[in-house]
Structure formats: C-alpha cells, structure tokens
C-alpha cells in the first residue's frame, strides 16, 4: 500500500496535536488530584465521551468489525444488551457512592466499604490486568502497521530492515502515549480520548457511506447475505439456530447481566472517567451521556464488517473488479475482502474442525479501508485506527498509575508522604506502566498461549466482581470477610466450570475440559457466558452466607457507602431532562426500540 505525502501530513498533524495537548495541560497539573482525577473539574459531556472512548480501543474497533463479519448483526448485543443497561445502572444507582464517597479509585471504595484485604486483591489483580490490556493494544497496533504495509516504502528507502517495522510501531506508540500522559495526567488522557472519539467518527463514517453505497444500501446487504446475518434476536431460542451459538438465557444473563455489569459498573478504567467530573450530577450523567453514542456505535464498527462480508458475492461474481491486492491474494477461499487465515510459521491456511479454511476476520475493516479510501482520506482513516489503539492504551495506563499510587504504593509502601511525592510517583508509574506494557506486548508476540491463558484468568477474576459491589452497595449487612470469601470462591467457581466443560469442536486445554468433560457447549461464547453466570452466583451466595456468620459491620462507618444509609442526591434544581433517572429511562426505551427494529 502506498501512502502519499498528504496521508503522512494528516497523520503528522494528528500526532502534533496529541502531544501538544499534553504540553498545554502541563501547567494545570500541579497536585495529585489534578494528575489522577483531572482536578474533578470536567463537564459531563467531556467525561461521557472519554467514558466510551477509553473502551473504544483496538479490540473494539477491529474486533467488533471482525465479529460483524463473522456473526452479523447479532454482534450488536455487545452494545444494546451488553453495555447500555449497565451504563444506565452505574449512572443512576452506583455513581452516588463512587463519587459521593470521595474515593479516588474503585479499589479505594472497596477499602472504605469492606476492608484492606478486599481492596488489595482488587487493586493488584486490576493493576496487572491493565498492563496486559495495554500491551495487547500496543501489540495489535504494531501488527496492523506491519500487515497494512504502511511503513514498508519509507523503510525500504531508508535501507532499514523490514523486520524493524514492528518494533518501530511499538516504540513510537509507546512514546506518544507516555508523552501526553506524563505531562497532563488524566486530563490529558481524557482530552485525547474525546479527540479520538471524534476522529474515529470522522474516519469511519465515510467508510460506511461508501461501503453502503457500493453494496446497494440495506436492500443490497439483504440481497447478498444469508438472512441469519441480519437478525439480532430471531433464532435466539436455540443455540443452533443463530450465528453466535448461544441461547437467549445465557446471552441475557451471562453477557447482559454478569459480564456487562461487571465491566461497566466496576472497572476502574471507565469509572475513573466519571470520577473526573465536576459535580455529582455530572458524574451521574457521564455514563448516561456515553450511552447515547454507544447505542449508535454499531453503525460505525459492526456495519463495516457486514459490508466486507456482503461484498463477497458481488466480488466473486465479477472478480476482475477487485483491484485491492490484499483481497486478491487468496481468490480460492477468500470471501470478499476477508482473506483466509494463515499460520504465521508455515504460511498454510488454518483449517477448522470440518477441514474448511478459516477466514481472518480481523482484516475485514482494514481491508475495507484500503479498498475504498483514496489517498488523503486513507490518511484520515489510518489516523482514526491509530487513535483508537492509543486511546485504549492510554485508558489502561492512567488507570494503572492511579491504582498503583493510591492503592498499592500509598497504603503498603509509603504512607503519609507529601502530595508532591505522590504526584511524582504517579509520573514514574506512568513511565513504568508504559515500559511494562511494551514487555507484555513482546510476551504476546512470543507466547501466544500465555496471552490466552492470562485473559482467561482475568475473566475468572472479573466475573464475580459485580456480585460483590451489588451486595456491598445495597445490603448493609455485607461484611469484609464475606466480600473477600465471595470473590475468591467466585473466581474458583469460574475456573472449575471452565475445567469441566468444553465448547463443541475444541480440543482439551486452554479452551476448557482440563479436569474432566461434564458438559459440551455449542460454542465458545456460550461457555464464556455460563462460566460468568456460575462465578457470579457462587460469589453472591458465598458472600451472603459468610456475611451472615461474621460480625455485623458498624453502620456509622457505612454512611455514604451503602444505599439505605445514604441521602439521595439533591436534584430538585435540575430541569426534567437533566435528571439522571429520566435520561436513563429515555435511553432504555430507545435501546428497546433498536432491538425491536433489528430483531
């Protein structure tokens, strides 16, 4: 692929702005509150856009396009039931405790509400997890730069070996993210996330426009795709009659309740964005404002995957009209713009259990970009992709430096130091966090299985979390011992369930069944959802049981941390459309309408 000077200019302008924002904000970053919580001074809409943008990383943009191509419109469940209800819930019910308790992080809330050991468990597992997530983002970005051959020509001209492209992509992205967070802290990360949100819209909207025009609009999509691609609910009564391979109960409970609430309501990466808001009302409106664009994001991230898939039949009908070389390489098995997945070591196509070649769905969106964007717009499209990778990385790095400083360094290593000291530690943690992300990214390159295994372990750790928060916030009898025991047993239950079950067509090992096979799930997704359900229920039951046999917590200590002991936020001065409950209701109704329209 040849980029011309206009493309480079656009990418360069973007990088200049990203770093410029960091430098411009440097003089406002004087205290640790400025650095870790943006001085609690940002308006709701800024926090709201950062709230979704921090999550709109590589896995999201490339991954949701890939899922769109593989599963079709059913991918929208990850938005409409897998995000919106939880975002409304956290805004209306949970934010009063997060923001009102003046905790500086989610683990710190756990210390205030429960005890030190529950906080320590959450802080340490979260810190490790963020490093790996940011490493994965970095790895994906460097890989994309390599696969799209963005730097091939300049490297050849300069006589630098092509193998260095990957390393360069990694180091440059690390330095840029480091640069803007080091100086401006969370404010800088949030400002850049908002910028990145608009860039992603600016880069992907013309892709959907040209793509839809090319396939002949919605009618064209319908004509060229199997009907199963264009429904989100039809066929959900049985795992074998829909593309996801799950049934409605596993979907709504596993994804819609356990996983979604576990992420959006307890993950400090997103909650931190709301904590930066300038008032309680703004903090509560942050996830609600975020829910509005989140509801519409499937158009930008899932639809391109569907378009790439739909172009198949049209391209196979007239193969000569496909000028993209990337799409032409594997004319035999390729479907449209989506090439066959190859084993990196042997370059042989990878086959599924039925002996058919697997498609590399991750290339659906990048290939669509190369297919339709002329030079100029191509620079903008690539900038949007780079922006999404960096926002994902930056979100993790800012969450890491805060949790490290407030929840690990301050309580366990050096308590009662001056504010300036913690500010310095935060900056050092930013450098260390970025450096460790590079290490994890290289780990991902060398040990693919280690990465899969870590993700699995994180899933086990995360699944029960929401039960702990739900009980902690709404049942004042919940004790620290109960929460700690619940979390550990929930994680153990997840591991046990995974070890005893396996998705159909998989081999024993990382996919499950490593203890014994008691049950076979129709798909990996169904297994994941049920693992989460088992973990959640176990944590919920054990937390209640242990709480009932341990000493009742002192109620005076729980004011502001538990629903029944906390005054409702004053909101009589707000006009009706500003009230979180009304805003939340409107969002839920709109989501239901979307589900009905695209059932």
């Amino acid at each position, binding site marked *: 692929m040849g980029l011309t000077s*206009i493309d480079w*200019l*656009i990418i360069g*302008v*973007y990088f200049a*702005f990203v770093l*410029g*924002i960091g430098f*411009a*904000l440097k003089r*406002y970053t004087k205290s640790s509150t400025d650095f870790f919580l943006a*001085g609690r*001074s*940002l308006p709701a809409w*800024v926090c709201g856009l950062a709230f979704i943008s921090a999550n709109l990383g590589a896995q999201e943009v490339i991954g949701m396009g890939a899922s769109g191509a593989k599963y079709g419109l059913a991918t929208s469940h990850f938005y409409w039931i897998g995000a919106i209800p939880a975002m409304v819930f956290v805004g209306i019910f949970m934010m009063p405790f997060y923001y009102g308790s003046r905790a500086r992080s989610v683990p710190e809330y756990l210390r205030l509400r429960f005890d030190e050991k529950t906080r320590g468990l959450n802080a340490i597992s979260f810190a490790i997890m963020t490093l790996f997530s940011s490493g994965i983002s970095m790895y994906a970005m460097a890989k994309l730069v390599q696969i799209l051959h963005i730097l091939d020509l300049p490297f050849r001209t300069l006589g630098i070996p092509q193998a260095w492209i990957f390393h360069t992509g990694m180091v440059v992205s690390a330095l840029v993210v480091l640069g803007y967070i080091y100086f401006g802290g969370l*404010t800088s990360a949030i*400002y850049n996330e*908002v*910028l990145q949100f*608009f860039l992603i819209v*600016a880069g992907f909207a*013309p892709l959907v426009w*040209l793509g839809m*025009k*090319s396939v002949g609009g919605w009618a064209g999509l319908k004509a060229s795709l199997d009907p199963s691609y264009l429904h989100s609910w039809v066929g959900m009564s049985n795992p074998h009659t829909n593309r996801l391979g799950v049934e409605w109960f596993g979907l709504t409970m596993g994804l819609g309740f356990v996983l979604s609430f576990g992420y959006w309501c307890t993950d400090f990466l997103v909650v931190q964005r709301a904590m930066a808001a300038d008032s309680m009302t703004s903090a509560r409106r942050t996830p609600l404002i975020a829910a509005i664009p989140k509801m519409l994001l499937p158009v930008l991230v899932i639809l391109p995957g569907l378009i790439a898939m739909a172009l198949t039949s049209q391209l196979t009908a007239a193969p000569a009209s496909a*000028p993209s070389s990337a799409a032409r390489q594997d004319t035999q098995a390729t479907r449209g713009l989506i090439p066959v997945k190859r084993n990196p070591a042997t370059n042989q196509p990878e086959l599924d259990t039925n002996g058919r070649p697997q498609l590399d769905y991750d290339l659906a969106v990048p290939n669509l970009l190369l*297919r*339709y*964007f*002329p*030079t*100029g*717009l191509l620079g*903008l499209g690539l900038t949007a992709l780079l922006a999404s990778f960096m926002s994902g990385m930056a979100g993790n790095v800012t969450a890491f430096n805060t949790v490290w400083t407030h929840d690990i360094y301050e309580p366990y290593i050096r308590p009662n130091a001056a504010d300036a000291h913690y500010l310095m530690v935060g900056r050092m943690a930013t450098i260390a966090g970025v450096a460790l992300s590079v290490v994890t990214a290289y780990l991902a390159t060398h040990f693919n299985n280690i990465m899969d295994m870590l993700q699995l372990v994180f899933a086990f750790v995360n699944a029960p979390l929401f039960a702990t928060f739900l009980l902690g916030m709404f049942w004042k009898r919940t004790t620290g011992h109960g929460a700690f025991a619940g979390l550990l047993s929930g994680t153990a239950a997840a591991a046990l369930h995974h070890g005893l079950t396996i998705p159909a067509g998989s081999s024993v090992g990382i996919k499950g069944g490593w203890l014994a096979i008691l049950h076979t799930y129709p798909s990996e997704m169904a297994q994941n959802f049920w693992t989460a359900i088992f973990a959640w229920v176990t944590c919920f039951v054990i937390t209640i049981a242990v709480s009932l046999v341990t000493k009742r917590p002192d109620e005076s200590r729980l004011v502001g941390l538990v629903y029944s002991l906390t005054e409702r936020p004053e909101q009589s001065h707000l006009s009706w459309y500003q009230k979180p409950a009304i805003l939340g209701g409107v969002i839920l109704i709109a989501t239901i309408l979307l589900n009905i329209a695209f059932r």
Partner: protein
Amino acid sequence: MHLDIRLPIGALFTTLGILLSVFGFFSNPAIYAQSLGINVNLIWGLVLSVFGLLMLLLGIRATLLNANSRKMVFREEELRPSKESID
C-alpha cells in the same frame, strides 16, 4: 480553569478539513475511481472544516465569557471597601 477542550478539537478538525478539501480540489480525478467516482476528499474535507469551525467558535465564545465573568469578580473585589478603610 482548564483549557476549553473545544479549542484543540476545533483547531485539529479545521486543519485536517482544509488539508483534505484543498488536496481534493487539486487532486487528479482518476484516484476517485476507487471511491465510486466521488471526490470524497473534497466533500469530507468540507464537512470536517465546518465541524471544526463550529467547535472553534463555541470554544472561543466560552473562553471569552469565562474570562469576562472572572474580570467581573475581580472588579467586585476592587469595589468592595477593604477592612482598613471601614475602620
């Protein structure tokens, strides 16, 4: 008071929009065979410029209003008789 975020957003999108539309205006029409014959650089560049200018406008207005209201506060403090003068 922080830097109003609409200023950098506006400046970035205006710059990108102008770059794209000027390039689109002078570029060889043959390159648009790829984008279904539409000069997307020109059209999208204009769209981005409009968005960028709007953001700039809102950002500048808010910054000026803010500066004004702060000036008013200072003024009031000046006008208020100081403790010593009352004594």
